[in-house]
Each structure stands twice: as structure tokens, then as C-alpha cells.
């Protein structure tokens, strides 16, 4: 670590202490590099942990906790190898520093369901290194061979029954050189990994003391609410802030690139001030956008050749020659992430430095963007990551929208300020999961699927961002075709094509990204193929996936859990889907029925997951429940639509999400596996929409190919039967 980084780290720890109460544990001793010599009172062998003289082990986590459980799973990786007392483990959010860059992606980011697989080796090694140094410290103090000692539950045990706790060894261990290479445990000796462990972050969250970005309070801080353009791409023409400024508590009204910021003593005055603001906008071309027109254009494109994402055999020729041809159009709308904590960002900007506190999933990018907006160097910007009240991808924006605008407001008002988005701002604010239109065809010959052509139409998430060159190859954004171009089913003639559309609606990755749409299309359409061939949808998948043991493993387990084929209550039916994403495999069986009003009820979901080697089974189960609930919100209710460029939804009344009374009973089975670890944060989402759509078809014989599956859509599909 450079001196500069050490200094910024100390500043971070000091301010961390000031946050108090929350999960960011106040640090009494700075993280010490070798330069600190004799002053050190705790043992900090690397950037990821330190052991204090009372035995408290602090794990510094470079991933953002947004519910997926990294503040527990990643410390478990360290603790397993360190052999420390789990009850003494604390967590601290890492500062922005290269030491915490993603081991594959090369910058600080939490995403792609990658935290466990990407950190496994690094954090295991960090823990093992510390353990070996503590063992050596004990061996030296007893004057015995390190090989005759062992570490266990936060203490080193010597050959003659000696025992020294880690806290007692910390000062001595801190003087030892770091071993260049350490051995990791044999998985059969694990005592923590693979067993359910209670989340470290739960008590503070239940107490109400956990610190989210929106909870940041600094004496004298102001709060800003921004009047945002009614149409994407619109610019401010004029404003009249007379009434806003007269409101008690309103301090300033300033135009910023994001709109007009009303800055006040607290949220309520800022919000009321915004409501009283009169603004005139130059709406630009965006006001011409309406969902029906966009659909028409997408449908037209879907019938034309696109860029080829995958090609095997000769799909077009085989389709024309097929004995039976199936063809369908599938559609999914724009979706808002709508985390429960609306977007927010605290900024304290000084001439030579800037402090940011926010729930970011994308620290390196956000810090760089903040520095540019502030006219500072990145190292002059300190970004402290709070807990995230949900992320789902929204808080990892390559455009850093909610961070940049907060810096711009702080710059304009010359005062520490927290920008808070209302729910309406959040739902209307863009960065949606793209709207997609898919045209898909299958050719059947002699009871076999012989050709498959899938044309995908929608916006590229990555085009136009700084990640375009890395993630868009030959015009194909991998996130547009993932889950479709890598179709696991063997089809001799296969073609996947893509049309990347362009418009002013900002799009972004949304929990499971491309898979959130491709799994629905592919797994629904494969079900159509099975029915057209007169085969059982589960048995047909089983037959096709013979060469894919991990797909097959979860498929069979989900079917077994659900009792596939057993009698069900009248009107109920099962649907199945299986999908690989983020290095994991998930199959789900949904049991559904329609109530008397024709509304779809999902009663039960049986879910099997193979995510390779596991850390915390209870978190995996929780993430499957979570993915299912999140996916059901989209499958049953979610749609962002536009009329004259305006988003038609605004709050949870017009953008409904799943509620407790509609939550199915979820059963999760985790496949025992020695495979490399895979992701769990997103992988529960993709199979649920097709599993439910397939169950609906099994129940009433109507195929709904457009999400969400509203009562009206289901009724319309039933009329066609």
C-alpha cells in the first residue's frame, strides 16, 4: 500500500467511527502497514483482515452488502482458513483501493453474482496467511517447531498443551514476515463453510441501527430533491422558483444538469419546494416515444435479418423444409429495479477533496465519475460504501448518474448535501431492464426438433458505456443474447440473431440481466415444442439434456421435489423450467391455478440449484426465495411503459410488486457438488417466469407470450384457444 493509500485509509477509518451505530465497525487502531513498526497493537497481515489484541477479527469486505449476504459469506471464507472464533468476527466496508478490485473484472464492483467465486481463493489465502503467521508467533514464543502446533477456534495449541489466543499473539505476529505461499484446507476439514451460519448484518438491521445511504446524517447537512425532466433527454428551458424559495426551510434552488435541485434543511421542505417549482422543458425527440409505436418497430425488425450471434447448420433452409413449423412472438417490457431504498448520495465537497457516502455497487467507476464532476483527482475523492437497501444492478451504473448529480448539487450549493430520490423519481428515472421483442421458430421432423431460429430485438445495455469495447463484440452485446445464444438443447440447425435498437430510454443490467428475458422466451418456447411433439415437458427436457449433467441434475431434483406427475388439486397444474446463468444451474417447478376472477395464483415453487461448492446454504436458499419473488414481480405485474415520452408508472400503485399474500411456498434443494463455486444472487430469477407460464398453459391450455401475465392477457390468450 502506498503512503497515500494508507492516509486515505486512515481517514476512512476515522470517519467510519463517526458513522456509529451501524455495521461499519469503529476502528480503534488504524490498519497498519509495516512502516508503523512498534506502534502496531493489532495484526493486519493484508488488506482483508486484522486481529485486535482482544481477539476481535475484522474482515474488510470489498463487496457491497445489498441483501445477498456477502458480509457473511466472505468473512466465512476468511474465518475458515484463519480458524478464528466466528463469534468475534466483525465486518468493515473496504475503502476504494486497488487491493479490493474484482479479481476478474479489474475494478471495484459487486455484480454478476460473482462475489463468492471471485473472492474464494483470495480471501481463503488471506485467512490462511494470517493463521500461519499466528502459528509461527506461538511456536516462537514456546520455542517449538510451528509444525507441532495447530490453530483452532481463535487460538494456537502447542505440543505440550500450551494455548495462546489470537489476541495474545497479534502483536508478535505483526512483526513476522508474510509467508510467500500457504496451503489451503482440504474441503473435508471445513468447519464453517457449507454449514448454515447466521448473518452478521441481521442484528443491526432488526434493531433499526444499520446504516444505509439514506440514513447518512452530518451536522449542518442539507437535503436536496431534484425536479427531473418529464421526458428522457429533455433540457430545462426556464423555471420560476419564487414559491419554492418562500417555503420555510428551503435554502437554495439551483439548476444542475440533472434538472433543478431544491436544497433544504430536510427532505420534506426540499420535496415540497420541488412540488412548488414551475419548470418548462425543451422535450426534444424523446417526446415522440410511445410503447405501442416502439413495439411496432421492434416487430418489424424481428422479421428481418439481424447480426448473427450463433449459427450452426442451416436454420433458414431447415425451417422451410420442416414437416411442422412452430413460430411465436414473445415480448417483455422495460422494468424498473425499484429497490426499497430509493437512490441517494451524500457529498461533502471541499476545494481539494470530496467525501461521498452512498450505497454503491461500482466504487471505482463512481469515484472516478465523482472526481471528474468535482474537478479533482480520483485519489482526492473518498467514497464510503454504506449498506444498500437493495441494488439489483441499479446501484452499479456505468453512467454513475446518482453520484455525479449529487456532486454537481454540492458544487452548486457549496455545502454538504444529500440528494434523495422520491419513489416517483426512482420509477420514472430510467436505467431500466430493456424492453425486448423476440421472434422464434422451430422446425420439427419425425418427432424431433431439427431447427431453431431466434431473433432478438432490443437495446444494448453496454453500447455507449466505457465497457462497450470489452463487452460488445462485432456489434453483439453479449448481455443481449446470453441465455439464448448458449442454448443447451441440441439442435442441428440453430441460428440466433440480434437487432440492437437505439433510443433515449436509458437501460441497465437488472438482476440476471439478459437471462431475465431469454430464459422466459427459450424455456416457454421449448415447452411449446414439447407439447407440439406430444411429450411431457419434463421428460422431453430430460431427453434433450442427456449431455448436460448439471442441467439434468437440477431438473430431476426440482421435478422430484414437486412430485411431478402426482395428482394435484382441481384446477392446479405444474410447469417446469431450467436455466444456466452466472456459473450456476437452477430448475424450478411452479404450481399454479386461476382464481374465479381469472387472476393467476402461484401456490408453490420447488427449486433446485447447483452452484458448485457452497459457503452458506441458508443464504443460498434465501437467494433462491428472493430470486423467485423478484422474478414473480416481473412475471405477474411489472411493466414500465411510455406515452408521449413520459413514463406512465410512478409508484407502487401503478408499478406493483409481489406482496406477502401472493408469495408462493418455496422449497429449495441444493445439489451437493464439488464443482467450482457459481453465483446465487441472480440465478433464481430466470426460470420462474417460464415455469409459471408453462404451468399456466398446463392448467388452462392458453399460452401467454407477453409479460406480465395480467388477468387481461390471460383472458385474451384463453379466447384464442
Amino acid at each position: 500500500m502506498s503512503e497515500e493509500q494508507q492516509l486515505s485509509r486512515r481517514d476512512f477509518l476515522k470517519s467510519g467511527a463517526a458513522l456509529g451505530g451501524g455495521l461499519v465497525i469503529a476502528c480503534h487502531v488504524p490498519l497498519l502497514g509495516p512502516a508503523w513498526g512498534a506502534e502496531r497493537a493489532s495484526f493486519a497481515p493484508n488488506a482483508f483482515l486484522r486481529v485486535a489484541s482482544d481477539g476481535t477479527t475484522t474482515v474488510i469486505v470489498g463487496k457491497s452488502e445489498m441483501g445477498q449476504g456477502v458480509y457473511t459469506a466472505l468473512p466465512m471464507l476468511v474465518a475458515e482458513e484463519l480458524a478464528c472464533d466466528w463469534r468475534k468476527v466483525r465486518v468493515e466496508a473496504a475503502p476504494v483501493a486497488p487491493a479490493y478490485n474484482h479479481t476478474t473484472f479489474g475494478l471495484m464492483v459487486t455484480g454478476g453474482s460473482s462475489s463468492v467465486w471471485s473472492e474464494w481463493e483470495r480471501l481463503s489465502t488471506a485467512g490462511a496467511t494470517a493463521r500461519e503467521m499466528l502459528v509461527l508467533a506461538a511456536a516462537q514464543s514456546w520455542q517449538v517447531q510451528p509444525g507441532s502446533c495447530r490453530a483452532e477456534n481463535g487460538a494456537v495449541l502447542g505440543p505440550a498443551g500450551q494455548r495462546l489466543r489470537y489476541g495474545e499473539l497479534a502483536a508478535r505476529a505483526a512483526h513476522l514476515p508474510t509467508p510467500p505461499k500457504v496451503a489451503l484446507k482440504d474441503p473435508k476439514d471445513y468447519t464453517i463453510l457449507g454449514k448454515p451460519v447466521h448473518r452478521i448484518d441481521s442484528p443491526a438491521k432488526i434493531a433499526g441501527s444499520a446504516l444505509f445511504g439514506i440514513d447518512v446524517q452530518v451536522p449542518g447537512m442539507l437535503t436536496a430533491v431534484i425536479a427531473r425532466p418529464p421526458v428522457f433527454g429533455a433540457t430545462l428551458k426556464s423555471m420560476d422558483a419564487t414559491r419554492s424559495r418562500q417555503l420555510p426551510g428551503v435554502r437554495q434552488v439551483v439548476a444542475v444538469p440533472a434538472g433543478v435541485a431544491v436544497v433544504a434543511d430536510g427532505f420534506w421542505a426540499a420535496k415540497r419546494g420541488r412540488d412548488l417549482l414551475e419548470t418548462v422543458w425543451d422535450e426534444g425527440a424523446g417526446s415522440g416515444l410511445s410503447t405501442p409505436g416502439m413495439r411496432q418497430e421492434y416487430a418489424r425488425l424481428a422479421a428481418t435479418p439481424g447480426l448473427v450471434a450463433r449459427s450452426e447448420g442451416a436454420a433458414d433452409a431447415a425451417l422451410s423444409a420442416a414437416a411442422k413449423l412452430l413460430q411465436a412472438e414473445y415480448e417483455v417490457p422495460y422494468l424498473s429495479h425499484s429497490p426499497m431504498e430509493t437512490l441517494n448520495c451524500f457529498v461533502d465537497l471541499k476545494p481539494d477533496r470530496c467525501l461521498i457516502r452512498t450505497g454503491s455497487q461500482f466504487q471505482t467507476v463512481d469515484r472516478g465519475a465523482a472526481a471528474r464532476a468535482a474537478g479533482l483527482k480520483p485519489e482526492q475523492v473518498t467514497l464510503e460504501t454504506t449498506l444498500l437497501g437493495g441494488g439489483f444492478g441499479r446501484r452499479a451504473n456505468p453512467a454513475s448518474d446518482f453520484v455525479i448529480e449529487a456532486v454537481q448539487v454540492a458544487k452548486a450549493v457549496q455545502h454538504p448535501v444529500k440528494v434523495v430520490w422520491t419513489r416517483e423519481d426512482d420509477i420514472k428515472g430510467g436505467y431500466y431492464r430493456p424492453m425486448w421483442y423476440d421472434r422464434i421458430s422451430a422446425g420439427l421432423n419425425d418427432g424431433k426438433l431439427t431447427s431453431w431460429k431466434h431473433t432478438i430485438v432490443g437495446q444494448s445495455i453496454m453500447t455507449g458505456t466505457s465497457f462497450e469495447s470489452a463487452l460488445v463484440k462485432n456489434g453483439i452485446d453479449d448481455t443481449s443474447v446470453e441465455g439464448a445464444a448458449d442454448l443447451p438443447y441440441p439442435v442441428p440447425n440453430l441460428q440466433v440473431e440480434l437487432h440492437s435498437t437505439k433510443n433515449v430510454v436509458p437501460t441497465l443490467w437488472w438482476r440476471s440481466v439478459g437471462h431475465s428475458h431469454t430464459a422466459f422466451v427459450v424455456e416457454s418456447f421449448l415447452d411449446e415444442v414439447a407439447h407440439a411433439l406430444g411429450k411431457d415437458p419434463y421428460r422431453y427436457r430430460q431427453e434433450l439434456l442427456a449431455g448436460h449433467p448439471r442441467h439434468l441434475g437440477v431438473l430431476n431434483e426440482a421435478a422430484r421435489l414437486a412430485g411431478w406427475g402426482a395428482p394435484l388439486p382441481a384446477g392446479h397444474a405444474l410447469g417446469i423450467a431450467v436455466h444456466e446463468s452466472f456459473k450456476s444451474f437452477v430448475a424450478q417447478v411452479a404450481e399454479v391455478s386461476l382464481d374465479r376472477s381469472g387472476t393467476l395464483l402461484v401456490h408453490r415453487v420447488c427449486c433446485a440449484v447447483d452452484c458448485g461448492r457452497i459457503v452458506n446454504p441458508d443464504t443460498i436458499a434465501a437467494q433462491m426465495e428472493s430470486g423467485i419473488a423478484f422474478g414473480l414481480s416481473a412475471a405477474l405485474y411489472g411493466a414500465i411503459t411510455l406515452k408521449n415520452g413520459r413514463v406512465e408508472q410512478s409508484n407502487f400503485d401503478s408499478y406493483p410488486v409481489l406482496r406477502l399474500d401472493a408469495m408462493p411456498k418455496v422449497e429449495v434443494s441444493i445439489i451437493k457438488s464439488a464443482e467450482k463455486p457459481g453465483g446465487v444472487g441472480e440465478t433464481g430469477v430466470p426460470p420462474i417466469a417460464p415455469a409459471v407460464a408453462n404451468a399456466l398453459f398446463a392448467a388452462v391450455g392458453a399460452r401467454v407470450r407477453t409479460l406480465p401475465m395480467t388477468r387481461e392477457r390471460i383472458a385474451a390468450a384463453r379466447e384464442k384457444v
Partner: protein
Amino acid sequence: MISLHVNGKLHRVDASPDTPLLWVLRDNLKLTGTKFGCGEGLCGACTVLVDDAPQRSCSISVSEVQDKRITTIEGIPAGHPVKKSWIAQEVSQCGYCQPGQVVSAVALLKQHPKPTEVQIDQAMAGNICRCGSYQRIRKAIHAAAGKGSKGGAS
């Protein structure tokens, strides 16, 4: 100045009478455990007890509750069966909605010490959780009520 009884303490706050209770709790009293989620009484993240009844603090003005007893998440003891059950059943994920969920569950169990599934549906459907912790919420309520769990929409 407005007088407020919050978590057993009397506070004098300088706020306009039409300010929603939520923002007085968060911005004036720094009780940030009560969360903002929608501002329209649609999500339940801001739920507090007003004289033991669950209320959406975003949709009730501070002047309406001057003479009432207000209990926020911070005022529910750590040893309360609901809080203990929430931790035992590992309900939280991101945790943002959970203060509101806990307060709603405390109110439910006060009214119905052994709630039925329908009573749980009715009491809890107003509290949104985007992480989908609903199955565990149901289980935690049953556990706090000293009952086993059934669960599921039926």
C-alpha cells in the same frame, strides 16, 4: 414547536405541523430506523405504532399525533419475541424494509396473539419487501406466536 411522545420520551420539535411524522422522526429526531420507501402509504417501510396501532408515518402529519404514544423500531426492545424471531428465522436480506415489517408484526401479534394465515396476509400485505423475504416473515410470525409454520398462498 410540537410536542411528541416517541419511545417513551417527550420531544419538542421545530417542524411545520403538516410535516409527515416520518420526516420528523428521521430528520429532526435522527431516528433513522423508520424508512422512507414510497411516500404514499403503499409500501409500509415507514410503519410505526401510534397508540399500539400500525400507521404509515409518511402519510400522517406530525400535528395529528401530538398527544399519541409513538413507538418506532428503536423503541421495540431487542428482547421482543418478534425481533428475536426475525433473527432466528434469518428474515433479513438487504434489511431496508425490515423495521417496518417488524413493527407491523408486533402490532399484529398484539391484536392476534396466534394469528391465522389470513390474518397474517391482511396485516402484512401492506409491507413490501423487494428481496422476497415473505416466506420467512410468515415463519417468523408463527414462531414468535409460538406456532409452527405452514405458509404459501392458498
